[in-house]
């Protein structure tokens, strides 16, 4: 029993589980919302660029053969760069990273909560059944049940120990990476920094500017006026999206940073609260239930 209790001390505490859950949720939420914004941001930029080129009545300049670029690529990159600074490759890289952030958060929570209890209990039952079938088995039914409980408890303790070992390796290694991705995401979602959101802001401002200019002048057909109005409305809509989502995402980044720091602290410093002691007491009670039949025997 003493051995079992000392191994139990090496398992996950409820404070650690709680921090892992908070971290997992924060990582998952941020990963999902960032992914959506990266993809939607590029689509919106393409839409706004289309309107702007139409309002500006863009005419392609003569092709310069000495540029060494094929004509189609030349026009696309020099004159019709529809996705502005949000190249597909740049967005794909970001989507892949935040997708992994989301997966990591989910994996961390699943790894901690999926205790493999059923699997161990099945094995322990099988173990107890084998003991029953043992020829000239001297044990009583209570003792055999107790043996099953001991095997389940010790198996569970060993599993917890292995999980904690893995977390102690992974969390300190990943923690600086989380801080770094928070920096990168802040740069992309803070409209004051030079990233994705500032680019969307530049594109929306340019569209609004050309639309306002066109609307200041009289004339044009009704369809051209509609184009100007739609262009202006699209720019305004994007400006609104940037303002709302930026503050939400920046808030999520702050949450993830906090959760990351607390998780690292709780994993490194083995903090144990009152709840952990209570949980520990419950585990020990389960174990002593299994040991009881043997105590009465001696």
């Amino acid at each position, binding site marked *: 029993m003493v051995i079992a209790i000392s191994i139990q001390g090496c398992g996950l505490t409820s404070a650690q589980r709680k921090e892992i859950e908070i971290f997992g949720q924060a990582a998952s939420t941020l990963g999902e919302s960032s992914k959506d914004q990266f993809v939607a941001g590029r689509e919106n930029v393409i839409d706004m660029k289309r309107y702007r080129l139409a309002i500006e009545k863009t005419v392609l300049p003569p092709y310069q053969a000495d540029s060494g670029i094929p004509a189609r690529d030349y026009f696309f990159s020099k004159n019709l760069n529809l996705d502005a600074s949000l190249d597909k490759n740049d967005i794909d890289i970001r989507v892949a990273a935040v997708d992994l952030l989301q997966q990591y958060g989910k994996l961390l929570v699943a790894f901690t909560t999926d205790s493999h209890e059923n699997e161990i209990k099945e094995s322990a039952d099988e173990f107890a059944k084998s003991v029953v079938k043992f020829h000239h088995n001297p044990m009583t039914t209570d003792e055999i049940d107790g043996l099953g409980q001991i*095997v389940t408890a010790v198996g569970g303790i060993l599993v917890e120990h292995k999980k904690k070992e893995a977390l102690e390796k992974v969390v300190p290694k990943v923690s600086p990476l989380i801080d770094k991705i928070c920096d990168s995401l802040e740069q992309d979602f803070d409209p004051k920094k030079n990233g994705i959101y500032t680019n969307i802001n530049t594109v929306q401002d340019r569209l609004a500017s050309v639309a306002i200019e066109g609307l200041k002048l009289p004339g044009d057909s009704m369809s051209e006026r509609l184009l100007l109005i739609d262009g202006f409305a699209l720019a305004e809509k994007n400006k609104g999206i940037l303002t709302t989502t930026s503050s939400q995402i920046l808030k999520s980044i702050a949450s993830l940073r906090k959760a990351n720091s607390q998780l690292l602290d709780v994993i490194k410093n083995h903090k144990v609260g009152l709840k952990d002691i209570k949980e520990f007491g419950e585990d020990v009670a389960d174990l002593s239930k299994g040991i009881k039949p043997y105590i009465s025997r001696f």
Partner: protein
Amino acid sequence: MANFQINGELQLFVEKLSALKDATSVSDPDYSALKDSYTAASDLLESSQEKAITDAGIEYIEFSKKIKEAMLIFDEADKKIARISKVVKIAAQVIDIAGKVIAKVC
């Protein structure tokens, strides 16, 4: 850092030009010059953003690579955990066989 400051100042400059252009009448003699300045500054800002966004992609690639490595540690741990219940199962099988052998001998 210096590059970031320049881009930040350029962004502010573009925003101010944009607001001034919106507020100026198209018949104003300076409107055309204002429009050209705004367009040039906005183009410059956009190309500086393109470079910054592409450069920042390296950080995301590095993150993806390293977090994938870290996640492999969980796979290893899962394999070890699976071994624990396997050991209990094997012990049960051994006892079962031993019981049968003893029954035959006795």
